């Protein structure tokens, strides 16, 4: 078992793209760690650099206490599950799972035993003789996990492990993965562009953009106090409202309403007000707008309001409380739920 230490890591592709840019990161032993970010932000590259499939241009990668920066992938003690699972189509599930042992030239008997053991843990026992082509997506994902587990590595790397599954399966697989990781206590890094997945699964999340980490923290930290507007916009199953405003004394003027401002901001400072749709509720005073669309979210509905200045504000309302279309509505949030961001750099201003 081992943590991962990354120092000053840069990976530049031959075409000049700096996919990972002077990045520092520590993943502690046994942690379930998520790399989250939009497409092209360098998540996969970072993961592959940890695995040794890409060589960094600068910086170091350590696993446990070993510097593995120049080691080939096979000697780093990592196992990886690819987004397309990369199950070998010509081998059965059992052969796939036992493949890491075959590479190490273990006996057939031990390969068989290992495959059976792992398959039991992952409820694959009845599928051992099938080919990957005969498995459903969820089963393939488990087989790929099984192969990674069988490798007996210290570190498990998963590249978008759930994105090839359909919506329902994804939920089940999520819970399954979380339990499995908990049971095995393997240091695990997984890549995702789905914030819900990262929030639900991870012990800690690194939100990336353009090869750099924008925020590093627990799901709660990241969700409640996004460090900048990029993260604020990215996290949350409904995106956070980000409205332009301006400081007026102890208040911020925003979309025709006056909101309590954080202290110590000079008058006239332009700010961005961030508030999650879930924290907004109908109130006597606050921001007023007309109902533009209503989307059913299950137990709640997402209401989009057309506000002054052409901004669109969304909030969730409980079922049965859906407002009619085009009705005016005034909404507000509890003071602690309002976040203020620097209008220039998008950095969080709340203390």
């Amino acid at each position, binding site marked *: 078992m081992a943590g991962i230490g990354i120092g000053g890591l840069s990976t530049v592709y031959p075409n000049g793209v700096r996919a990972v840019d002077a990045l520092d990161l520590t993943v502690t032993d046994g942690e379930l760690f998520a790399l989250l970010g939009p497409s092209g932000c360098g998540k996969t590259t970072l993961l592959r650099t940890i695995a040794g499939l*890409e*060589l*960094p241009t600068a910086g170091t990668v350590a696993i446990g206490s070993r510097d593995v920066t120049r080691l*080939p992938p096979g000697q780093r003690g990592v196992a990886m599950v690819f987004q397309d699972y990369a199950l070998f189509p010509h081998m059965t599930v059992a052969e796939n799972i036992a493949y890491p042992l075959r590479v190490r030239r273990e006996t057939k008997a031990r390969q068989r035993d290992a495959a059976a053991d792992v398959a039991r843990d992952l409820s694959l026992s009845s599928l051992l003789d099938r080919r990957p082509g005969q498995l459903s997506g969820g089963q393939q994902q488990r087989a790929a996990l099984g192969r990674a587990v069988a490798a007996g590595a210290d570190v498990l790397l998963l590249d978008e492990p759930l994105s090839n599954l359909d919506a329902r399966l994804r939920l089940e697989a999520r819970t399954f993965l979380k339990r499995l990781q908990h049971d095995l206590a393997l240091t695990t890094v997984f890549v995702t562009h789905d914030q819900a997945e990262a929030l639900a699964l991870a012990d800690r999340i690194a939100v990336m953009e353009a090869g750099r980490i924008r925020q590093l923290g627990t799901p709660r930290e990241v969700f409640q106090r996004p460090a900048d507007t990029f993260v604020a916009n990215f996290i949350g199953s409904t995106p956070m409202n980000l409205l332009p405003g301006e400081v007026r004394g102890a208040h911020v003027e925003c979309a025709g309403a006056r909101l309590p401002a954080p202290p110590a901001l000079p008058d006239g400072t332009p700010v961005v007000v961030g508030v999650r749709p879930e924290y907004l509720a109908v109130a006597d005073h606050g921001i007023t707008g007309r109902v533009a669309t209503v989307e059913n979210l299950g137990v709640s509905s997402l209401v989009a309001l057309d506000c002054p200045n052409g901004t669109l504000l969304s909030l969730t309302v409980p079922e049965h409380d859906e407002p009619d279309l085009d009705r005016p509505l005034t909404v507000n949030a509890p003071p602690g739920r309002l976040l203020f961001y620097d209008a220039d750099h998008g950095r969080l201003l709340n203390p």
Partner: protein
Amino acid sequence: MPSRAAERDPAGIGAARAIGFVAPALLLIGLFLVFPALWTLYIGITDYQLTGPAAAEPSVVGLDNFTTALTDPLFGNSLWLTGLFVLGSAVVGQNALGFGLAWLLRAARPGLRRTVEAFVLLAWILPGPVVAYLWFAVLSRDGGTLGLLVGRPGTAWLVEYPMVSLIVFNTWRGTAFSLLLYSSALAAVPPSHLETARLAGASGWQTVRDAVFPHIRGHVLTNTLLISLWTANDFTPFLLTAGGPNHESEVLPVLIYRQALESGQLGYASAMSSLLLLGNLVVALVYLRLLRGRT
């Protein structure tokens, strides 16, 4: 240290091992292909003959052979016939038939599809001499199948229509490659594109033009290049017509063969081979340009 992206080396072969993997093939190719080829080019500038005084002491004659070839009406004739042969049987015949079959069979029942494919492939894999006999039987003057079928028994097809016969023959022989290639290429055309065209009400031709061809353009070009090269250098016509009657079907490889073996003019034959190689090169470059052109 320069970054070594896995895109360039996902298997971690490394340059040294890569050379190890390529070396055996390169060795054979170098020894038995490139070396004789260069030697052939050299022979092309000598007056080397198989027998006679020039066999004893061949001398370098520079570009004489080439100028002779370029003014030799037989060479011009062969060049024209080769062009006709390639155009008729490869660029048009095999391509069109191969694509047409692939297109028709794409939706056909598997049984039918396999049957047709098997026959087309059989034509491809049967050994050349056997195929020559088969086509004698088709085109023969007495009892030939074609004559019987079209009600013109006694027609000596190979004499009266030598090039047409060869073109039909080579189309028959070589369509398999195009069929295989286009079948695979068509399988890679996203069905949704075909269906988008159908939904818009496109005709068959419009569908091919708008939804299919752009996807298989690369395949079409590569296929045309390969079959053109193979056809341009194909020697099988010799087995059928031996270049006759009266040089009417003497494509370049046959001319070269006859110059080399029947007349023993190795220098001259080598020079013509070099010219053929040059022609191939030009064709290949044109294809490559087209391929790069609009991608």
